[in-house]
């Protein structure tokens, strides 16, 4: 029985990428794998939107990239969080938690 998959709400992709990178530098494929694993296969990042998002975040200065070697000895592009990216993550995470808590409260109450 396939696990039900959810589409990502608008704007959460950036948050997921930033959060994933807060553990340590990763390449794009690993980011998408990790999000998928941690969410119990519920969240899947569309490949077509992952890379534009990464490039966009890099342009904003929240992450930076360098070329490194992957586990299987291939050349891969690793992304890591910058100082301003950490701040951004904290801000977005705070906002997200406040939002979900508020939404949950409303749903429970009514």
């Amino acid at each position, binding site marked *: 029985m396939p696990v039900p998959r959810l589409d990502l709400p608008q704007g959460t992709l950036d948050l997921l990428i930033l959060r994933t990178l807060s553990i340590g530098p990763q390449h*794009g*494929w690993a980011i998408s794998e990790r999000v998928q694993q941690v969410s119990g296969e519920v969240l899947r990042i*569309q490949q077509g939107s992952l890379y534009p998002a990464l490039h966009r975040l890099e342009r904003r200065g929240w992450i930076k990239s360098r070329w490194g070697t992957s586990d299987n000895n291939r050349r891969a592009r690793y992304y890591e969080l910058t100082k301003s990216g950490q701040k951004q993550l904290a801000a977005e995470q705070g906002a997200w938690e406040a939002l979900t808590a508020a939404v949950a409260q409303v749903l429970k109450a009514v």
Partner: protein
Amino acid sequence: MLSDLRIRLRSLFRRSRVEQELDDELSFHMNQQAEKYLRAGDSREEALRQVRLEFGGIQQVREDCRDARGISFLETFAQDLRYGLRMLAKSPAFTAIIILTLALGIGANTAIFTLVNAVMLRSFPVRDPQQLVVLKWSARQWPHSTGTSSFGDCAFPQQNETGATNCSLSYPLFQVLQNHHGALADAMAFAGTFEMTLSGNGAASMVHGDLVSGSYFPTLGVAPALGRTLLPDDEKPGAPAVVVLDYGYWQHAFGGSPTVIGQTIRLNNAAVTIVGVTEPGFTRLTPGKSVDVWVSLNQAQALGLKFIQPSDAKNFWLVIVGRLRPGVSRAQAQAALDAIFVNTVLRGTKPLWTPADNPHLLLVPAQQALRGIRNIFGEPLLLLMAAVGLILLIACANVAGLMLARAAAREREMAVRLAMGAARRRVIRQLLTESLLLSFMGAALGALLAPLGVSGLAAFFTKNAYMPLQLDLHVDARVLLFTLGAALLTGIGFGLAPAFRGSRTSVTAQLKGNTTTAAAGHGRGKLLSLGSALVVLQVALSMVVLTGAGLLLRTLGNLRGINAGFDTHNLILFSIDPQLAGYKDKQIPDLYANLQRRIAALPGVKGVSYSSDALLDGGLWTSSQVIEGRADKNAVDVQMLSVGPDFLSTLKIPLLEGRALTAADTSGANHALVNRSFVQKYLSGRRPLGLHFGDDSKKLDTEIVGVVGDTKYAQLRDEEAPTVYIPVRSGGATFEIRTAPAPASLMPAVRSVVNSVDANIPVIRMRTQTDSIDRLLFNERLVARLLGLFAALGLLLACIGLYGLLSFEVERRTREIGIRTALGAQRSTIWSMVVRHGIVLVALGALAGCGAAFGVTRLLTSLLYDVRPTDPVTFALTAALLLLVGILACSLPARRATRVDPMSALRCE
């Protein structure tokens, strides 16, 4: 953001590298994913298929990444530019015509704007010019019993029912206002320019000098290039006479020699010591006014400028310029100074105004108050700017028409692009990029052509000015910005219509390969009506400019046809001022008689005389006289001219009654001649000979001994007015020499006669009477000449537009024409079919142009003479000229239409 900029720049300049990295990154991802599926047990093909499915078009991901990196705008632009250049190179003739058209349009605009900028817009080349203010008085009426001199720095002195205002003030007032620190950081005063004789540096020459306060240079913040400038101490009573030279003058008159400092020269025969040279950047204060030397204003008497009495509070002659103290607004400074001013002019032993006159002092920004040549050239320049703007509009419409025709030819290309998935936005952008490319190339060429026009115009200005003009014509940021703006607007202006048209191409019709139906179905209705409208617009605009030019030409013809009352041909004029070379009044009649005799002895000279001013030479002397026996005892206005012996015979002014003035009249009893207008207007039928008149009723000391014919005096346009001729007794004079051969050929001989009589007397402005009259008609000639030029240009462009439109149409209808011919249509029928279309457009344009011109030519009213702005003859002639030229432009494409070979026309599709 820094990272943003870095990434964008990297995207732009290291494009291939960035693309490669993106490809590497994406393929790494796909490999990882495929391996994952392989590990899960999929076959290799299945794994790869799965990956590709997930990824969605890889090309799309690439595009999105590119967009995310923000490279798309610059990159697309570079791409469009490359493509545009390729397209333009493909049709060089088309490209060349468009660039040339735009270059003419933009170049002409840049040229006129350079002049407008120099005359109207440029700020003073001094420190912080925006802090400078000019002190101007205003009151209900002119101050009581003052003498006012103004030197053309401010607007013309004004007086009307509501009051009077001027910016000439007295030296005592300047001292009072200057000593009030608080409102102004500094204040200076100046007057001029005065023509001065400079000797002691080779042959005597005329220079233009300003009288200035010691604070002049410190207030303006002008530093010396050499030595020192004038300083406040130079203005103190008893200070030694010193002079500061203008940098440009020092360069050409003293060869830029540094040893001039300390050298003594003579100005109007008074010894002055050169103490410094101004910095080269300080080229002018008042727009257009060129100053060679600056002298302290307390030297006025020593320089023989008798009409200036610095200590006299009733002598208004100085322009006062102040520098606002930082932090003090103009209104605050004005309030403070006005209080002092009002207090000063209403009190004292002899008040200048009464409180009822409500005198006040105004502080006007110097840029606005010091007008100089803006007074004279401002209006015609703005007129020309408007006219040349119309020419650019015509050029724009012209190019738009050409682009439209080409857009039709490129419809297939556009259809392919649209079918391949290009966004319409993208197609519009591509076409606009091409337009802008053309307009900027046109502007670049135009900017190269503009200096030619500018130098021609500047030479025309200088040749017709009474004083050397200082025109700062170098290209500055404002001119550059103007040209860029013109290019941008033109590019968008002519590119917009074809671009939208191009993007609306019908894909299916074009790709079916049936271009004829596509063009006919799509083009006939819309494309051509827009093209036709553009031609009509061009013709209409040309009509406006042509009409203006026509009206000015008729005005010039009318003015030149005016009978001046004397023979203006073959007449040399030159002026001298012997007093400036140290002559006493008593010596002057002998000097003039001697000069007259010696010049008359030159071969080719038929007559010589002299007068205080020449007729139609820019001067006018008016006076009030009381005439014996008139019922009205008040003084009447007359024009005055003092003349030497033989004046009437030299100028060929007819003597109607009595006798002419002779050498004997120079001394003894006062005799005078009056003109016919004088007799008609003031003597009401009484016999003029033997009547007396004079300055006031108690002293009617001048007897009328002759009556002469009327002549024009100040301006050709003015009515002949009552004029009195009295003998020359003193002062400077202008000599008139009637020549048999062309006047210019005798000028060197005349000059050497003057030099041989006294080398210390400089010859001022050797000219012909015709030159002088041309100078009076300067504005009319300038506007007529340029409007004529612009009109020719506009007409040419409109013809090219018409020709282009009809050629395009003939080409498009080749098949139809072929069929008609095959069915037996006569060549003449085909010819008139094409020409008729053209004529309809020209007629429509001429009609619209008539309407527009009707509204616009009013602007020319002040320049016109004896012709109304809506003169029907000019309008009719202009329209006829347009139609004639229009038929010529149509006949070429029409002839081509008659030559269409039915067989090949039908086969080619």
